[in-house]
């Protein structure tokens, strides 16, 4: 009885304030890296700090980052979508096809988004409907979607998109702020709110940490995952519109290898590849870092492939170094 009568012990909500939590977070480390890269770049090249150059640099990452936001949610939920780059290609091919039939910009945009969404639905159905592992399913659909592009286009290309369409990839909303950059910012905000401020986002975290317990807790696991794959398809469609408009042409090899860059961006942003943790601000910072590094190397005339070595090393280092550090400190 004495136990029951004892006043319940008070448990504080949190032990640390927001500032302390931020200092310890992955995002703060990324912020330091971003500042460093920015500083190094501005010393390395006199052209770096020019607003128009910086604005140009953003095209390096905006399209990939759009996909990365949706991918971040998929990875937090414990799944992965390797077909995103292939969706970009198929959506671009669909738009090219529609253009050849004589449709104008509004229809092309609808076709691009629709094709992306449809691909997302296919992935979602295979993963949630048939209960197949997403890593293999999306390796399959990656081959299928890009394969369809190849089947339609072969070694040809669609060119000659209407002037009004190219605005999505080349237009500016105001001064140096391109449409893509504004879209990137808006989507970052949107996805940040979805993941961090809504019930849906909480469900994504719960599923990523323990799918079974989430199901028992009344989370509609299948439905949430289906929506995530749909959203990823839609974002790939959107990125496809921007990219196609920017390049002005569609080849079946468009956006080749982007899935790896997008996953790298997400993981660099602190999202655990095993699911269950990560944040949108982290992904935004990772996108900025990757974009600035690419741009900096470009200014220094370093070829793109060397840049990719750097990204590969970065990916392994950002995940491996904290582990090494923890090991050394534990000794």
């Amino acid at each position, binding site marked *: 009885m004495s136990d029951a009568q004892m006043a319940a012990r008070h448990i504080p909500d949190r032990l640390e304030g927001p500032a302390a939590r931020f200092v310890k977070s992955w995002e703060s480390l990324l912020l330091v890296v971003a500042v460093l890269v920015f500083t190094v770049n501005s010393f390395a090249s006199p052209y770096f700090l020019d607003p128009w150059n910086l604005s140009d640099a953003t095209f390096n990452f905006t399209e990939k980052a759009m996909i990365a936001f949706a991918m971040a949610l998929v990875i937090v939920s414990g799944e992965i979508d390797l077909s995103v780059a292939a969706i970009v290609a198929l959506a671009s091919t669909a738009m090219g096809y529609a253009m050849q039939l004589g449709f104008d910009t509004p229809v092309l945009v609808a076709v691009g988004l629709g094709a992306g969404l449809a691909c997302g639905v296919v992935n979602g159905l295979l993963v949630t409907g048939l209960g197949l592992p997403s890593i293999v399913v999306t390796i399959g659909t990656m081959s299928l979607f890009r394969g*369809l592009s190849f089947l339609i286009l072969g070694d040809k290309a669609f060119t000659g998109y209407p002037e009004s369409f190219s605005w999505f990839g080349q237009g500016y909303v105001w001064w140096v702020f391109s449409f893509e950059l504004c879209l990137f910012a808006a989507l970052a905000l949107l996805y940040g709110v979805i993941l961090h401020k809504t019930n849906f986002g909480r469900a994504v975290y719960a599923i990523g940490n323990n799918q079974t317990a989430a199901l028992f807790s009344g989370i509609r696991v299948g439905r949430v995952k289906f929506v995530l794959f749909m959203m990823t398809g839609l974002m790939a469609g959107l990125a496809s519109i921007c990219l196609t408009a920017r390049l002005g042409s569609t080849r079946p090899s468009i956006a080749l290898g982007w899935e790896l860059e997008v996953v790298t961006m997400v993981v660099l942003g602190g999202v655990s590849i095993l699911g269950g943790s990560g944040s949108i601000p982290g992904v935004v910072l990772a996108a900025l870092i990757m974009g600035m590094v690419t741009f900096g190397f470009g200014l220094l005339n370093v070829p793109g492939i*060397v840049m990719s070595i750097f990204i590969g090393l970065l990916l392994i280092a950002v*995940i491996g170094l904290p*582990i090494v550090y923890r090991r050394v400190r534990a000794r």
Partner: protein
Amino acid sequence: MKMLLKNREMLLVVAILVLVGVIALRFPGFVALRNLVNVYNDTSILIILALGQMAVILTRCIDLSMAANLALCGMVAGLINLAMPGLPIPAVVLAVILLGAFLGAINGLLVWKLDIPPIVVTLGTLTIYRGMIFLLTNGAWINAHQMSDAFKSLPRGVVAGLPVLSWLSLIMIAIMLVVMKRTPLGRAFFAVGGNPHAAVYTGIDVGRTRFLAYCLAGALAGLSGYLWVSRYAVAYVDIAIGFELDIIAACVIGGISIAGGIGSVPGAVLGALFLGVIKNALPVVNISPFAQMAISGAVIIVAVAVNARAERRKGRVILKKAEAI
């Protein structure tokens, strides 16, 4: 239940036979022995690579860097030949097998010692290894005329009616059959993927076993690197780009579970052959070669669905009368 495992491979044999049969109905030339030998020869490299990937996938890991490893080793083989045309080819092959194993060991060490998820590690090394080729060559190609004749002719030589390339893949299959079925290491691959936790208790070092699987896959990728470059008589940064997915596709089609612990050498070989038959049949039946990618994508999806059905656990049967059914 052994039957079921056999059945999974039988199913694939039947699927391949049906596929070949349907093609033969309209294009009898396809089943000419000569052509079938060609198809096999053409698939040999994929078979060798799928055997390595199988070992890795069995341990619950994945190696996305195999094609990049192949490309780097192939380029190094070419560079060695360029610098020392007189060096015996077996020495070159041995060198790139060791190099491949070393590159695989890097993957394995990162997975073993740092606990980095395999997909992240090999995603990273995939770009690094391919980038290394550029650093080595500055983007230059090695063309046929720069390679010594011995270098180019080894895989094409014919022994007892089969090209050496085919013989090499058959030898690799035989070696892997023995390794997987009759050596403690081979059984450890299954144990580590089937139940890593329990493997520790049976005295198996999970990390070390995975490391060795990566070394094995790397060595096979190194060998394939030489074979690829000498067969196609060209080496450049982008050879075999995207081929890592074909390798994984062959394994998945062959019934190797991506969750680890389930798979077999015949499965991997048949999976590779299935893709090889499709690839070689397309031009024959007058379908655009550009359709190959879409078809293999569809095949992967079907194969995963079929595998998942076979692996699905039956629920607990409690009612007596239900047991009888």
